[in-house]
């Protein structure tokens, strides 16, 4: 039986708080700094098996020998890694008694996004009476998914319950030593999600609601592993359109996708971490490694809407290992005020007749810097590889920057690679035209930006697309004086 999100919502509205389970762990934070004892302690708290502890330690030893990358087009003060606390038990986030105590600006934003009162409370960290709790949601989901043999749980649970799968695939697409941040994440990852779709199964729902609600407690070093077995399909959504007032400055996540023969994974992200204030103070450093591996005839699509974070460093990539496999990357990256984004993708063509598509839309406003960085690599054995890349930049005002860094490495002469790029500016004449039709300037900009981003917005699941559109509007508010 197909189980839709609508049905789930209805069920939750009427459901009593059945699973009276509250993660009431006292706020417990380790002392700052990182060493082998800290890692052992993290692993112990999470009741991990020895192989996992060893894996983490190995990553730590690798990390110590590595240095932070500095080739990207972003400038920031490097974090002091000995001044970070690496274990923070999911704090009870209930800081307020009622919504009246919450920052009214935040509530205004919630309203604009059309988020329900209950969810607003949850996201702002208000004690909730009628709980739409991540635990019960997850449990309801799980029951439906279990019928199909789909495993969908936290990575911590997966390490305990499905060690064979985790052992086989973790670090197989993003090796520990891949880069500085992936090594760090491998050593200290807090939690994340695990998903396994069995052979030939089409996941009956967008895996979304869970994450939106669960977001409030997401850790600093997230680890996600998605495995789509032969001939299966899954559409996976992460992130949250609601602004996240996370105080963790450094976020270094790792996401690994494995699409076995004839499988398809759609992975959509909306990232809206705290971007810092108007003067560029504060904000999250978002250093993410995301990569997918496609076996024969498999397909992986990355779709991302990146509006948050002070600094973003992120290149969701596809390794097209199997013949006839397909990789896609659709991205909207918005930067405003002093935000910096260096984002793009890598399409590594290894198999024959592999295809990749890259559509990147960068929107820069304020004094921000927005860079697209993409690699298309065709290996000597990848006969008849095809790539199409399109990178469009939209500038608002004259104090921001848009940059494009395309890298093309073709080592097989049957490859066909196309690259198109454009840069445009929102013109005063466009705004006046809209104004003359009764549309105010803010709405006019939203309209123009949505038109510009349309090709990518269309790739998002319907419900998410509407939210993402509103998010674009909000992110650019006040960007034209």
């Amino acid at each position, binding site marked *: 039986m197909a189980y839709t999100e609508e049905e789930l919502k209805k069920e939750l509205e009427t459901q009593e708080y059945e699973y009276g389970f509250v993660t009431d762990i006292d706020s417990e934070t380790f002392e700052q700094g990182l060493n082998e004892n800290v890692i052992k302690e993290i692993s112990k708290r999470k009741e991990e098996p020895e192989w996992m502890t060893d894996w983490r330690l190995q990553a730590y030893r690798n990390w110590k020998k590595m240095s932070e990358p500095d080739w990207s087009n972003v400038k920031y003060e490097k974090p002091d890694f000995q001044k970070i606390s690496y274990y923070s038990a999911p704090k009870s986030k209930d800081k307020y008694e009622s919504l009246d105590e919450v920052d009214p600006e935040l509530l205004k934003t919630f309203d604009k996004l059309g988020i329900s009162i209950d969810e607003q409370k949850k996201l702002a960290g208000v004690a909730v009476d009628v709980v739409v709790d991540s635990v019960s949601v997850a449990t309801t989901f799980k029951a439906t998914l279990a019928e199909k043999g789909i495993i969908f749980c936290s990575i911590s649970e997966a390490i305990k319950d499905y060690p064979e799968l985790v052992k086989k695939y973790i670090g197989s697409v993003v090796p520990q030593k891949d880069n500085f941040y992936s090594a760090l994440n491998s050593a200290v990852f807090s939690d994340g999600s695990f998903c396994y779709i069995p052979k030939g199964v089409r996941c009956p729902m967008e895996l979304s609601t869970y994450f939106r609600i669960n977001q409030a407690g997401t850790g600093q070093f997230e680890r996600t592993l998605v495995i789509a077995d032969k001939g299966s399909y899954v559409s996976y959504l992460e992130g949250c359109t609601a602004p996240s007032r996370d105080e963790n400055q450094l976020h270094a996540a790792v996401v690994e996708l494995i699409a076995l023969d004839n499988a398809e994974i759609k992975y959509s992200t909306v990232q809206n971490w705290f971007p810092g204030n108007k003067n560029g103070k504060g904000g999250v450093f978002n250093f993410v490694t995301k990569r997918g591996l496609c076996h024969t005839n498999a397909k992986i699509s990355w779709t991302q809407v990146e509006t948050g974070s002070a600094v973003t460093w992120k290149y969701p990539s596809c390794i097209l290992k199997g013949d006839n496999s397909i990789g896609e990357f659709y991205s909207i990256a918005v930067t405003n005020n002093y935000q910096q984004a260096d984002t793009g993708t890598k399409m590594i063509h290894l198999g024959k007749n592999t295809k990749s598509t890259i559509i990147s839309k960068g929107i820069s406003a304020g004094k921000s810097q927005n860079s697209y960085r993409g690699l298309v690599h065709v290996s000597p054995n990848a006969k008849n590889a095809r790539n199409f890349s399109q990178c469009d930049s939209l500038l608002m005002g004259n104090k921001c920057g848009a940059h494009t860094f395309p890298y093309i490495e073709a080592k097989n002469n049957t490859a066909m690679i196309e690259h198109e790029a454009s840069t445009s500016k929102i013109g005063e*004449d466009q705004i*006046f035209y*809209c104004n*003359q039709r009764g549309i105010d300037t803010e*709405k006019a900009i939203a309209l123009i930006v*949505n038109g510009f981003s349309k090709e990518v917005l269309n790739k998002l699941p319907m419900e998410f697309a509407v939210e993402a559109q509103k998010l674009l509007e909000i992110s650019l508010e006040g960007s034209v004086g």
Partner: protein
Amino acid sequence: MLSIDDLHVGIDGKPILKGINLDVRAGEVHAIMGPNGSGKSTLSSVIAGNETYEIDKGNIMFKGENIIDLAPEERAHKGIFLSFQYPVEIPGISVTNFIKTSINSNLKARGKDEMPANKMLKKIREKAELLDIDSKFLSRSLNEGFSGGEKKRNEIFQMAMLEPSLSILDETDSGLDIDALKIVANGVNKLRNKANAVVVITHYQRLLDYIVPDYVHVMHDGKIVKSGNKELAHELEEKGYDWIKS
């Protein structure tokens, strides 16, 4: 409806309009003619509220209210419509989506509810038919890749949808072949009534055979140098613009 009094306008300190006086009452059609550079398009832009120009002196009264300090969208909300000489492109936004946003913005500003989708759709169909517009055209991106004629027809389509009190048609005839011109003129004529007014800005007399004006004004060097009835347009056509320059 519209009353312009001693309007002086410049750009970067250079005067363009040098004392314009104009009165347009409800139900009337006025034509403003004149050679290139006489200030016709500047006048239409300034009435619509384009902020690139500096108002040095004078007032623009609309329905008894001085609108000189109002933003362009506020003037639109009050019922002023400008059919642009060069309509801009907005990629990715369909004609339908744009007009829907426009209509609902205006309704909202007037304290009314948004137009329900079925009513909107019905109206779009009706007005598209009036202007002989194909439904495929409505789902194309606004003005992107439109021919000159399509752009102008789209302007009049928007006018038909918005039903403004005052429509200013800035060189709507340029770029139109005779068939398109007839369709557009026919559309404008059907929209005319006792409560609204039209100001037609044109270089040539041709359009005025189809949209017959009650008054004709001739502009030269930032001033209205001659006013009369529709006969003036014919006289101008015969004698050329040199006649008024001398």
